[in-house]
């Protein structure tokens, strides 16, 4: 074991010089099987690219170590430093365009891998999953499906689920004798009530753009069902205009402007951010009663305002809309992160074996649970007690488990060129600089 494993990159360039590049794969594995274990050239080393994350990386490393113990193929974790997720996407783009792409790729599913899937740069896992029902059934179906690109499975869930829900200040609600909203009408009543008490009904990190999107995603889902956005996505992927001007979309956009008029987000939301704790602090200080946000808001509050998280923070599903076609149990948000395999990998079989062995492995899953994640793995009910916040973990788990659909955040699902028009367009709708009609027009005109 004294030898450092030959890196794949070094090996390939050496092989290229020798003019045996085509033989490299078979030769190396032959060497690995016949040679002494751990000896020179024993198996390949695959690069596993993940987002740098002090909490998650050691857990991923543990899965890799467990796999490497008994495998000829060795995996090496390459955490990619980032600020806010954008740098990872850029670096991945460059890595995937190079002759030596990473072998296993951390991603956000659907839109984030659309270009790679269409360009044949990723391994289609559909047949593998179909031929191994035990493997397929070890993940929650709605989450596995939410990561599909071009109608096929390219990704295996690798960490916790992040649906969006309504967080509320239960102490404040109790003081005022209010209940979290079950219907949209309740929500409007709460808005009027809290506004009259000089408490901002909802905190909103408008400046960062994506928090606004959660409102549109949930309203469209409740009013028109998940098929509204699925239809738009299909049109867009087929190269046609999305057809954004559907009644459910326009209705939702009008409701958003109505909420703004009712001061549901206060008067100064246009200056409030999420990333620098603008909205979170507003909520934690009791100046805002509710906050529509992803599950990460829980760990965010536990981190920054532990007292508030312990005493006052509670959660509820997004309310139903009277007459809406959507299912009250449907959720939107970020289903999870996925691992995909590069089709240029020197050892696709080895990479697949890793995903099969480790991603639903109890050791790995328990580590995730201890770190506060709620993994997208089936049959976790009893094990979630090990979570630092069991009540919340169980709630999120059941919420996703019984969800008939899990709509991936639109800015992650749509091709990249839609991100900016969607973000800035919706900001303008909130600011009333754009009418709902202008918004759908602009979205249909994206090229």
């Amino acid at each position, binding site marked *: 074991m004294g030898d450092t494993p030959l890196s794949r990159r070094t090996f390939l360039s050496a092989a290229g010089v020798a003019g045996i590049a085509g033989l490299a794969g078979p030769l190396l594995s032959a060497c690995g099987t016949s040679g002494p274990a751990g000896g020179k050239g024993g198996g390949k080393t695959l690069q596993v690219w993940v987002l740098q994350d002090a909490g998650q990386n050691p857990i991923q490393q543990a899965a890799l170590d467990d796999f490497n113990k008994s495998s000829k193929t060795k995996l090496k974790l390459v955490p990619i430093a980032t600020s806010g997720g*954008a740098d990872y*996407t*850029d670096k991945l*783009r*460059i890595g*995937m*365009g190079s002759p030596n792409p990473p072998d296993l790729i951390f991603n956000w599913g659907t839109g984030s891998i659309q*270009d*790679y899937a269409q*360009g044949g*740069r990723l391994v289609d896992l559909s047949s593998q999953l179909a031929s191994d029902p035990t493997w397929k059934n070890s993940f929650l179906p709605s989450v596995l499906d939410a990561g599909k690109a071009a109608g096929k499975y390219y990704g295996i869930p690798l960490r916790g689920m992040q649906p969006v829900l309504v967080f509320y200040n239960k102490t404040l609600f109790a003081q005022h004798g209010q209940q979290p909203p079950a219907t949209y009408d309740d929500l409007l009543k709460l808005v009027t009530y809290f506004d009259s008490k000089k408490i901002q009904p909802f905190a909103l990190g*408008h*400046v*960062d*753009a994506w928090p606004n999107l959660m409102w549109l995603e949930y309203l469209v889902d409740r009013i028109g069902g998940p098929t509204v956005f699925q239809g738009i996505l299909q049109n867009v992927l087929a190269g046609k205009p999305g057809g954004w001007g559907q009644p459910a979309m326009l209705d939702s956009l009008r409701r958003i402007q109505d909420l703004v008029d009712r001061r549901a987000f*206060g*008067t*100064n*939301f*246009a*200056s*409030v*951010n999420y990333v*620098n704790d*603008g909205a979170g*602090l*507003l909520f934690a*200080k009791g*100046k805002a009663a509710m906050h529509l946000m992803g599950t990460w808001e829980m760990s965010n509050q536990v981190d920054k305002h532990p007292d508030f998280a312990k005493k006052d923070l509670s959660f509820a599903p997004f309310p139903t809309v009277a007459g809406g076609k959507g299912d009250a149990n449907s959720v939107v948000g970020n289903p999870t992160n996925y691992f995909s395999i590069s089709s240029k990998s020197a050892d696709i079989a080895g990479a697949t074996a890793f995903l099969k062995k480790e991603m639903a492995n109890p050791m790995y899953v328990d580590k995730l649970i201890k770190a506060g994640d709620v993994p997208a793995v089936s049959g976790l009910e009893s094990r979630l007690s090990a979570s630092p916040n069991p009540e919340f973990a169980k709630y999120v788990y059941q919420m996703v488990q019984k969800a008939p659909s899990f709509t991936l955040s639109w800015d992650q699902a749509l091709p*990249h*060129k839609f*991100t*900016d028009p969607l973000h*800035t367009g919706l*900001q*303008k709708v909130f*600011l009333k*600089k*754009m009418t709902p009609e202008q918004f759908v027009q602009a979205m249909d005109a994206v*090229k």
Partner: protein
Amino acid sequence: MTAARAAVEGTDRAARPGALWIVPAALFFGVFAGVPLLLTAVLSFTEWNGLGTPHFNGLANWHRVVSDDAVWESLRVSLVFMVLCWLVQTPLSLLLGVWAAGRELNRAVLSSIFFLPLLMSTAAVAITWRVLLDPNFGLAATIGPYIGFPDGNIVGSQRGAVAAIVVVIAWQFVPFHTLLYQGAARQIPQMLYDAALIDGASRVRQFWHITLPQLRNTIVTSSVLMLVGSLTYFETILIVTNGGPGTATMVLPQRMYLSGFQSFQMGYASVIALVLAALGTALSLLIVRFSGFGKMHSTLEGI
């Protein structure tokens, strides 16, 4: 004096360096500016998402940029920032620079404190300001009501956001321009002021008739740096307002960044990059030409 000048010119001619001396600079410029610029020009005629090989699509990107309202809006925003930043920064840094040129101890101490923002990372400065501008818990909540923003919503309105960015940029870059003016003001020969004093000129007149004309070259240099530099404002705006509210402060570089690294439309982003490069070049050529900077001689001529 004339003899001395002739002598200077004479040595200048005799010792004119050979063409070989330009090689390192040309090489550096060629590799890090020339070649990338050429490649960008080629890319602007292609469609490329950053993967695989770009394929040519003729003038499609160029046609699109002409009819893209978002780009025109960003161009307008960039020009507004350019003008406002120049108007705010030039008088401030000129006055501060002249003041700081004095040799008194208090001026030395105060100006070294004043230069501090120059040493800070732009991103760190911008994040600090972003927190200060929070309408509920930041400084904006405290002073907002006194400056016409009762709910602290400064960066939530176009005027407020533009003003906030101009202030942040001025706060960070005025020290640099002050430094230029300070250096230049110290070069002005004392005898000019002595002569003016004998003629009974007041301090204000001394400033108008000696200091300002003597600083002419510096004003041009500083203005070129400011105006061309303003075309590259990016990270401050990205962090403080994220181009918002809506797209009210979205400058051309951010538009380029979004096209390139969010939409992954590298060809289109290249077109915007070229427009920016052309604007910057044209601008500095114009200023140099119309200010007579190229023909200018030393301000010490005749002394």
